């Protein structure tokens, strides 16, 4: 999980659920603006990290993506 979290993706689920809650409260239009702005910045950072990871993935995928599939897996334990 931490490996994913380091790239923004893993934290996405947690951040999102908290943000949904936070966002709803924000919609109630009552709170501390400074903290809300900081919260927004955090989620934007998390979003950027996820985007950066996907960009890196797509660049590396062009070179090695075809290798990710194991053609002989059917002969082993899953589909004997």
């Amino acid at each position, binding site marked *: 999980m931490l490996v994913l979290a380091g790239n923004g993706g893993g934290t996405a689920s*947690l951040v999102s659920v908290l943000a949904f809650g936070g966002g709803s409260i*924000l919609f109630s239009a009552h709170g501390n603006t400074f903290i809300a702005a900081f919260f927004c910045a955090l989620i934007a950072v998390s979003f950027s990290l996820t985007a950066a990871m996907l960009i890196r993935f797509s660049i590396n995928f062009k070179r090695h993506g075809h290798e990710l599939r194991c053609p002989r897996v059917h002969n082993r334990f899953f589909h004997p």
Partner: protein
Amino acid sequence: MKSQTTPSLLKSIISPRRFNDRPKKSFEKVRVFAIIPSFKPRAITTQLIEDLVRWNPSLTIILVDDCTPSSYLPGAEIFKKCTSISERVTLIRTPENTLKAGAINYALSYLQKNNIRPDVVLTLDDDVVIERNTVSEMISSLLADERLGAVCSQSRVFNKNKNLITRLQGLEYLGFNATRLADEGFFHGPLVMHGMLTAFRISALEKVRGFTEHHLIEDYEITARLKEAGFDVRLASAAYAWTEVPESLIDLWKQRTRWISGGVSVVKDSKYWPAVVQDIIGHTLFISTILVLFAFFLLTFDFGAGPIPPLLAYAILFFSVVQTLIWFLFQLWFMRFYDERDAWDWIIRISFIPEFIYANSLTVVLLGAYLFHITDSLLGFLARHIRIFTIRGWTLSLFSRVGYSKQWNTRDSH
């Protein structure tokens, strides 16, 4: 080894550095030794050695019996069967139980004593299943670029059909492979060259002086030190390997407390931040989110509260919803590389909820790890000034009972 400058490391966030893909030497001309630490081996170890011998004619195998007790009856027979497979299999036994890192170090010193210097050392768990090309793909990938100190195989789960917990781990491991591919050329490469199956360049192993013994997560620890020594690491994406994952919640909890608490130790002890950058980002984001939310709810009902600009609220919702959606769509698309998948895996993934609960349950383990490390540091600080040996010992033993400890003490405790 040419070290990377900070600007080039930062550039790698969205533009990963490239490595050569064609090896300068062929696999057959390279001297490769596989070190397999084993404690209470099972039939799967015999299968692993048979496969290694059959598919890799130039490979030599050192099977390290890490002091398997004589009370474990199948042990002697399995070790005997393993050594009878080929003359290329050597069995050595540690004088006392030294755990995985100690057993690998013991094998490395055995090679040194016998004046054997391989080009590449493979380290494997004894319950790994490999494919015909797994080892050759790893060696080719490692030798293709001199900057590489280690490469690891893909990690897949062979008991994933056992129950919901193993299926969730199967999907999780699929994500690990995606992340490792994304992290190729990002700073010094993926965060962890896993202990399940990794190939090390011998010069890299020598430079970092082998494994740190009794560490909770020795694979992450040595990966960080390799990066600190200037080496890069990457996933050998065409090297497939399967491992067995915990099948019960208790075993999963034990494994994850060890991984996550050990991971926090590595970050805490690392002297070179680019080696653990993914975790630094992850921990910073996580802790900041918790603190900000705490402050937000606190201040909402106290001073500083007032109308929030609607734009802020919309921005928060936009970023969180879009991020979740993008990530979810990516997870669905990536299922095409999950060759072991069946209908149940699709249901779990599409329904979103099981993985959501699983990922956020592991957050509890992370919070526990923070609490453990903070308590340990605090008590360590106090112990230098006042006599609190009893309280410290009692507190740490309490943490130990729920899986958190500073060292991996015995095989059976984790």
